[in-house]
């Protein structure tokens, strides 16, 4: 908190303050809040020990890692693993599938919790609102393995989904065998599972909007819809933007657990993503260097996207992560 206040203060007066003066201010602040700094130390130590120190392990992406020889003892192979991945027969398919799932998620799964939060916000009946919230949160707490087990069962030829589709005259088929349906099932079930949980942060943002704004809007003759458009949405826009930037920083990630639980050889064409490929190649066959190389590539792309999104956002509407 203190640090943030300080930096905000510094930024606000940043153009007029000189460096020695800034340092003096910092020293004063440090003296005043030394216990808080002391507490903050542990957070910093945590990241140093558990996030930064293990990072030296990424060097195995450039080595031929063997557990017996250890990280330092293994021999260097340069960019061998990277070129192997880029030249892989499936590279373009993996990249396409990974990006497409993410793009569709951005289009459909990202707005879903915002819409739910807006809808919940309009509910006047407190008990009903609470029931809806609890019901929509629940799937979040069910293990992904269980969820996928349910999806697999429901998608069978004799399963629930086919029963429902049957009422509309759709011929029964195993839905998980159709490559063109994989993304729909993957993203649809993701929305179902995550929409309630995802809406919490927006609800929190909504509660922070000054009620006087609504009163003023009412006086100006705005109906409920206009209030949503001109008061509510702008009110939570910074939250939306921040989450959007973070989401774009994960464009190369698709959790492999859910993919490997749902795919089969028949749907590889649309379902096989970088992470599931790494799982098969890296973990099952114990090619640690190869999987590290692929993930390092992923992280670099994600990092660049994050920076790009942040910069654009700062230019366009002055909201940014840093």
């Amino acid at each position, binding site marked *: 908190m203190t640090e943030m206040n300080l930096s905000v203060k510094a930024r606000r007066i940043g153009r007029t303050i000189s460096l020695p003066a800034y340092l003096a201010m910092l020293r004063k602040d440090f003296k005043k809040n030394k216990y808080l700094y002391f507490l903050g130390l542990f957070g910093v130590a945590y990241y140093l020990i558990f996030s930064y120190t293990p990072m030296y392990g990424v060097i195995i992406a450039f080595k031929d890692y063997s557990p*017996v020889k250890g990280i330092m003892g293994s021999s260097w192979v340069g960019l061998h693993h990277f070129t192997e991945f880029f030249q892989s*027969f499936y590279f373009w398919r993996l990249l396409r599938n990974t990006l497409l799932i993410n793009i569709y998620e951005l289009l459909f799964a990202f707005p879903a919790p915002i819409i739910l939060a807006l809808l919940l916000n309009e509910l006047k009946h407190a008990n009903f609102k609470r029931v809806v919230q609890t019901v929509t949160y629940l799937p979040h707490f069910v293990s992904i393995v269980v969820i996928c087990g349910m999806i697999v069962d429901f998608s069978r*030829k004799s399963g629930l989904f086919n029963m429902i589709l049957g009422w509309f005259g759709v011929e029964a088929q*195993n839905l998980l065998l159709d490559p063109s349906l994989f993304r729909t099932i993957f993203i649809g079930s993701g929305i179902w599972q995550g929409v309630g949980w995802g809406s919490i942060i927006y609800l929190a943002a909504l509660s922070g909007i000054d009620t006087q704004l609504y009163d003023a809007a009412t006086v100006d003759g705005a109906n409920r819809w206009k209030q949503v458009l001109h008061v509510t949405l702008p009110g939570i826009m910074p939250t939306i933007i921040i989450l959007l930037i973070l989401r774009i920083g994960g464009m190369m990630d698709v959790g492999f657990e859910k993919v490997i639980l749902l795919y089969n050889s*028949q749907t590889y064409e649309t379902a096989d993503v970088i992470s599931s490929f790494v799982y098969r190649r890296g*973990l099952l066959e*114990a090619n640690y260097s190869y999987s590290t190389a692929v993930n390092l590539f992923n992280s670099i792309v994600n990092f660049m996207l994050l920076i790009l999104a942040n910069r654009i956002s700062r230019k366009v509407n002055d909201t940014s992560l840093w």
Partner: protein
Amino acid sequence: MRIKKYVKLSLAGLLAVSVIAGCSNSSGQPESSAETTGTDTKKVSFLWNGKFSSKIPELKGYGDVEAYKEIQKRTNVQIDFQDNDTGNLSQFNIMLASGTYPDIIYVPGGYPGGVAKLVEDGVAIRLNELIDQYAPNYKKLLEEHPEIKKQVMLDDGTIAKFPQINLDLRRNAWSGTMIRQDWLDQVGLKMPTTIDEWYTALKAFKDNDMNGNGNKDDEIPLGDQNGMGSITSFSTAYGLLTTFQIHPETGKVTYGPYDPVFKDYLATMRKWYDEGLIDSEFAATDKKGFEAKFSNNIVGAYGGTITGINTYKNQLKSTIPEFKLVGVAPPVGPAGKSYSAAGQLAQYVPLEGAVVSSQAKDLETVIKLLDYMIGPEGSDLQNWGVEGKSYVVENGKKKFSDAVMNDPTYEARVAVSRYAYPTSGMVKVMSYDAWASFELQYPEAGEANERWFNADKTLLLPPLLFKGEESQEISKIMSEADTYMKEMLLKFIMGNEPLDNFGTYTETLKKMNIERAIEIYQAAYDRYQNR
């Protein structure tokens, strides 16, 4: 003011302590040295094959099993059992990365490079001389059975492991295709022996209301448990497997799905699929889904393990009195012989096995323990348990006692785990009789075992060893080629890809360097034969 300050300070301190406490983890370092304790009992640490799990709650670990209690008593060695989830390679690798190894390490079959790599890396040691010195049982066994010695040995003649050994390969005939004999009887057909007879039988299953529930369309003539095993096993009729194999005509190594004849097999399966003889969901069926279908009495035939014959009979005999699932010999097709696809029928010794680590100090004790386990006494203990307790000898033949077969609370298969491990392997010579007591519960299972065993084993490759860079190259090529082959196999069979594109498919396999992979296999096979 003052007090507030102290409260603040002590709170911060408390937090610091708790953070530090959270950081330090209790590391369970394996004890590695075989040390002599006061009572002359020696200690040996042993990374075991498989994680211990039992349906009997009072059994907590391998040390609670009578066989291993007895082995420790008789050899005067205290074994420090370390569980190893053999399916989980990362666990094994963490052990290796720690740099501290137990005295004996059971190497999982999937470890890249296998035992040879561990010897090369200096984790495991060469045992040839030590076996001469301390392991009379094992030495005798290897001398009497050159075919076993050949499979235990590395390419350069090094012997580094104490494995599970199958003297009687009949025990390995535990997988194949099964069909509902009662359904065949209903339509007046005999057990299919050729591809054409299979077609007739499956067609009859399709066209008739076999289960008599009034619905003629719910029967699935040929089902699949998982991994497409039922469908792929029919490729043997064309002299091909869906993996590396020996070509029946040339005697050379080849990759079945790369052979031009594979197209004929695909055409047959395509026809079967088109006519509804194959489960339309076969590509997505898991074991659970399949069991549900089979229990609903709608599946006519499938490929799987011999256990199915017993368990499905136990499950269905009350509702379907005439229920009879039988094992069928592999069908004869254009290739002219009944070829087996069961790779284990060429394996006296699996790729895995127990190695002695380079950090083991008391080599004499370690080797003697392993030799005892693989010798007749140790093998009997592990296969049958303790005489008088879990088994009795009648007319020179061993038989499980009532304590196992008629346990009041547990079925025999579970009850036996108190005493021995007759159906799974460790460092021992497997017993066919002990295994058969559980797996060949019904006469049908015995017949299946015999039919599967008698099939022609020409196509099967023995367990091969690859050199370090070879195994890397193989894994690089095959992770792509195998994925591609499976995808295309499905597309061809389900009609998403016309069979005319078979040429493009083999062309792509060629581009993926499949010929290099075949070459590596051939070289490894040549080395095997020259051992």
